């Protein structure tokens, strides 16, 4: 609570106590009026002052002014009944309206302040200092002052302040604040390290590669803090609605105060009952404040974006959260999103000797090449090849290699090579790159190398379907056979293979034309050379984008780690947020309209009106804060 809020709370309690206390005092007439004036002034003096300023500035729809008119009007009616009708006037109502209005304002300010703090706590990744070694001593300096290429020290328990490369030391890093991933990550000498991670175990010496302002952590904070400035359609709708709503209610209040009595007097020959109709008009003024609507919508989005960033999903604007919730089509780029983009030996078939031996021969034969395939063979082999065992390496372009290993003639390559050497080979039904092996002219089996699927890829596609995605599409530059294999394995609906980067844009455009207007299309890429597609889709989602500036630029939503499960999670977060937004819109408008109708026919009194104003706002704000809780989604 800040000072303003504390002062307000005291005023609220004071006037509430007086209001209750005066109820039991046996006073009447003028004394009673003066007595009741005290709590009214205590709770409402600032409103009255603001109302006066509103008149001076010609702001007829100023909330304070409307509140002042409503409450002063109610007091005037009470005086009227006291003086003219000699009944005890009801002052309590006017004071209560003012009191509850202030309670509502107080609650709003408290709740908004609290959620502001909550969300900034969630994003508490801003490092306060960097340790620089000077004259053999560690000194804490402002990270802004550290130049590119300086060496900084990060001790256990500290946040890495600036992006860089580890010069010495090994440690375990906690990246949960950045990625939402709770599994710690190991890092050692030569590894790149991004700011915002928490160093858990060892002391690290880091050579910075970026300035603080360009470091991951600054970029992320900037992105999240400015996200809610890109307003969604719902927000724009509410601001427009608020601009019409208040004047409309005020004008109908004037009409309600004047027209029915005149009609009764001249049209029907009945008593005018001015008091009744003015009272009903005053209840209108109490309901005229649009605050419940106006606060709850941006608050919901703000909470939703905050919750999402805590889960490692950065949303660049409320508008994107809104579009994401309408996503029905998800288009994937295969490599880097569904598969790891790393080639790995998947299987060895029809081998005449042990797998290890065959792999060793293959790795040795390919040892001169730096092709990803040969590197994956070496990885599968598990050791550096001893080049001295290999002689007579001959690369046959487009076919493979032949070499002599330990005196054995080894041939490793595709079917063409086998044909060329006149070796009988066995075809493989697996998708991927197939390396046939022949030892001394004898077929020795084949090795299947393929891009491996990410561990959660299958569940991720299923989770998307469950989250309401109607169609999943995969685009890839890979061969048809590989693409179809991956697609059927993962349960993807549609595949387009053998695409050049430009074809991917064309394919996405085609899909955009096919789909119905309301269903939105999201494209998921790894941010590497798919920036044009990311910006062409309704929503561009870049994943595993930590540290990749181009992806953060081009995408609308950035997934901090490369787990495809996060896509479905992001959609579920957006759905929840938008559901809350719509709940609040319908609830607040609905209750207000009902209360207006009841007020017009005289069923609703001021107490109900104040509920329509303050009660609805409190409920809407509490509901909005729910958008923050996304852990279990």
């Amino acid at each position, binding site marked *: 609570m800040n000072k303003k809020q504390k002062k307000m709370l005291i005023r609220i309690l004071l006037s509430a106590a007086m209001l209750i206390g005066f109820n039991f005092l046996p006073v009447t007439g003028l004394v009673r009026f003066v007595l009741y004036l005290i709590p009214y002034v205590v709770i409402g003096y600032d409103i009255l002052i*603001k109302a006066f*300023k*509103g008149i001076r*500035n010609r*702001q007829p729809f100023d*909330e304070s002014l409307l509140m002042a008119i409503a409450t002063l009007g109610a007091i005037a009616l009470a005086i009227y009944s006291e003086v003219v009708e000699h009944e005890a006037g009801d002052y309590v109502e006017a004071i209560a309206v003012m009191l509850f209005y202030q309670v509502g*304002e107080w609650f*709003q*300010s408290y709740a*908004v302040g609290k959620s*502001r703090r909550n969300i900034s706590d969630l994003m508490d990744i801003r490092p306060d200092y960097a340790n620089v070694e000077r004259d053999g001593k560690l000194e804490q300096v402002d990270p802004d002052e550290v130049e590119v290429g300086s060496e900084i020290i990060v001790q256990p328990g500290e946040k890495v302040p600036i992006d860089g490369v580890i010069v010495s030391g090994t440690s375990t890093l906690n990246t949960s604040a950045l990625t939402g991933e709770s599994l710690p990550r190991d890092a050692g000498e030569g590894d790149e390290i991004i700011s915002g991670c928490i160093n858990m175990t060892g002391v690290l010496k880091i050579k910075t590669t970026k300035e603080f302002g360009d470091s991951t952590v600054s970029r992320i904070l900037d992105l999240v*803090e*400015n996200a*809610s*400035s890109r*307003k969604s359609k719902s927000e724009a709708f509410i*601001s427009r609605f*608020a*601009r019409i709503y208040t004047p409309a209610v005020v004008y109908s209040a004037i009409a309600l105060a004047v027209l029915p009595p005149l009609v009764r007097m001249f049209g029907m020959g009945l008593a005018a009952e001015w008091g009744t109709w003015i009272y009903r008009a005053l209840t209108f003024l109490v309901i005229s*404040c*649009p*605050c419940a609507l*106006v*606060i709850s919508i*941006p*608050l919901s*989005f*703000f909470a939703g974006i905050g919750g999402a960033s805590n889960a490692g999903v950065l949303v660049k604007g409320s508008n994107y959260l809104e579009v994401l919730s309408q996503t029905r089509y998800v288009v994937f780029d295969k490599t880097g999103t569904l598969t790891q983009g790393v080639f790995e030996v998947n299987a060895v078939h029809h081998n005449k000797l042990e797998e290890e031996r065959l792999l060793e021969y293959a790795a040795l034969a390919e040892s001169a090449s730096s092709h990803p395939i040969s590197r994956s063979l070496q990885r599968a082999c598990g050791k550096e090849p001893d080049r001295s065992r290999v002689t007579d390496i001959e690369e046959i372009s487009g076919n493979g290699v032949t070499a002599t290993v330990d005196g054995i003639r080894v041939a490793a390559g595709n079917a063409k090579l086998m044909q060329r050497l006149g070796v009988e080979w066995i075809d493989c039904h697996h998708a991927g790159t197939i390396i046939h092996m022949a030892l001394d002219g004898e077929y020795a089996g084949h090795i299947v190398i393929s891009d491996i699927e990410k561990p959660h890829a299958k569940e991720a596609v299923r989770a998307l379907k469950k989250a309401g995605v109607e169609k999943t599409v995969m685009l890839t530059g890979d061969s048809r056979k590989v693409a179809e294999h991956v697609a059927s394995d993962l349960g993807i609906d549609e595949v387009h293979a053998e695409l050049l980067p430009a074809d991917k844009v064309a394919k996405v455009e085609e899909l955009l034309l096919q789909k119905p207007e309301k269903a939105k299309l999201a494209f998921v890429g790894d941010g590497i050379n798919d920036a044009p597609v990311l910006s062409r889709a309704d929503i561009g989602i870049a994943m595993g984008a930590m540290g990749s500036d181009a992806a953060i630029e081009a995408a609308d939503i950035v997934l901090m780690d490369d787990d495809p499960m996060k896509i479905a999670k992001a959609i579920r977060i957006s759905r929840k947020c938008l559901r809350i937004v719509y709940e609040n819109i319908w609830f607040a408008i609905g209750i207000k309209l009902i209360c207006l109708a009841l007020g017009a026919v005289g069923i609703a009194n001021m107490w109900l009106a104040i509920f329509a104003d303050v009660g609805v706002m409190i409920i809407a704000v509490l509901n909005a804060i729910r958008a923050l809780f996304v852990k279990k989604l």
Partner: protein
Amino acid sequence: MKKTYKIDVDCANCANKMEQAAKDTSGVKDAVVNFMTLKMSVEFEEGQDAKAVMQEVRKNCKKVEDDCEIFL
């Protein structure tokens, strides 16, 4: 040219009013008030002096909502 200013305002509707007032100020191309982060980002028209325009913006905002502040 675009600049962001810190603001202080108590209610969401007042923030909307400030946004409208800022937009209607001459020399301002577009303005967005973010109530949640209490920031106002103003896009100025070509060749306008940001400082002078912001004085006007502040004056106009004070007119629609007395209780607001823009930290220039």
